[in-house]
């Protein structure tokens, strides 16, 4: 009998999206609950996550209404910690491979995409980051990509889940130029990524963006403004 899984998320949050993608790709049954972060329900901070952030995953305990969380469930927070948790709870899902070297490679990709792309990209969108840093980060991550359809190995892993929200937002800013960076830099980034220097990255991104899991978690229409940015 499998334990209940409830994911408290925000539909616009890239961190929530990472976790949802992993759940969907693992075929794990779960309930998703959108938390209104601008008007946080009191029960969320008192019973789910005192820090009040999403994503938060509850695991186990009785099957209750998401708005009536049980103290008996385990509460897991921090998106990359949740990704590893899901790989542990669904060991045959392929979210993490079984052999130690491949696992280390997946983790290296997660680490690189978090430090080199995720941070710089969201800073760039908020008008705080540098175009060059973002490009360097993308180039670094491109260097880790293997030759197949997935970031590492021949199966979807938490590496793909981790970078997907970044790929989605990259696509948006390069197609619309929306963001707090200087006008035109979004389009310029798009042109650079179409060049031969980034062919491998773009090929990988195009593939990942086609996955149905992504389409289930992302509403292209509602992207900006983001409530906490």
């Amino acid at each position, binding site marked *: 009998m499998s334990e209940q899984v409830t994911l408290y998320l925000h539909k616009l949050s890239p961190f929530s999206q990472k976790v949802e993608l992993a759940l969907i790709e693992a075929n794990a049954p779960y309930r998703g609950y959108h938390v209104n972060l601008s008007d946080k329900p009191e029960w969320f901070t008192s019973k789910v996550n005192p820090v009040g952030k999403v994503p938060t995953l509850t*695991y*186990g305990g009785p099957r209750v209404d998401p708005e009536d969380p049980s103290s008996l469930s*385990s509460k*897991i*927070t*921090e998106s*990359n*910690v*949740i990704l*590893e*948790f899901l790989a*542990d*709870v669904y060991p045959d899902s392929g979210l993490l491979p079984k052999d*130690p*070297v491949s*696992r*280390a*490679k997946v*983790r*290296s990709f997660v*680490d690189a995409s978090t430090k080199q792309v995720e941070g710089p990209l969201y800073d760039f969108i908020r008008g705080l980051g540098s175009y060059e840093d973002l490009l360097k980060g993308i180039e670094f991550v491109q260097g880790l990509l293997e030759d197949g359809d997935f970031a590492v190995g021949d199966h979807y892993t938490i590496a793909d889940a981790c970078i997907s929200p970044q790929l989605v937002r990259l696509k948006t800013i390069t197609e619309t130029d929306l963001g707090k960076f200087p006008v035109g830099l979004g389009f310029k980034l798009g042109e650079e990524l179409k060049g031969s220097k980034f062919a491998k990255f773009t090929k990988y991104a195009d593939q990942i963006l086609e996955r149905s899991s992504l389409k289930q978690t992302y509403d292209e229409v509602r992207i900006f403004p983001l409530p906490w940015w």
Partner: protein
Amino acid sequence: MAQEQITLYTAKVCPYAQRTEIALAEAGAPFKRYEIDLGNKPEWYAPKVNRASKVPAIAYGGPDVAPENPSPESTKLAESLILVEFIGDLYPSSNILPADPVLRAKARFFVEIVSTKFSPNFMKFASGNPEGTHAALLTGVDAIQDILPDGAKYAVGDQYTIADIAFAPFWARLNLLVQKGIGAYKDEEGKSFLKALEDPKYAKFNGYVQRILARQSFKSTFHEVRPLLCR
């Protein structure tokens, strides 16, 4: 049980590198240890072992060669936390990863708190950054104490895990600096920090850090050389 060779590129001063050495000691794993002089790195190190030119790094597998002559056939891995998990995966008998996924998540969350709330403040303090005050250090201590379980030996229970391994080298170096009064921070900040920790409210934290410093795998890999900032 791993049969492939493990070569660890490391440095005595470096807290990140010590994490990996502790994990290897807990696993009882045979490995070749190669000391990298961080002030004078060999020119083969970045191109052949770690592009980022940092320690720790592991060359795993491939032919049994001298560490100064790394083979392109070995797998090169870096980033201390990834290496600690790698050793946990190679040597499940090391017990540094809890068997229960929820406890594992707690251990990883503890590591996140160390990385986000403790280490940055420690680095600022040790480097004499004006933001590195004793108050900033105490926010890190508070964050850690808040998640320490009651009545348990270590970070997530009685089992010694990756959580303790992640924290111990950093605490040890901060402790060394303030006890000996060395480092770039202002003298009164160091004294205020030590004084604050005498408060009975930090009993749980103080008990915990005593135990992690007493762990054999920590002691055998800690060298009381003057800590440098290795990043």
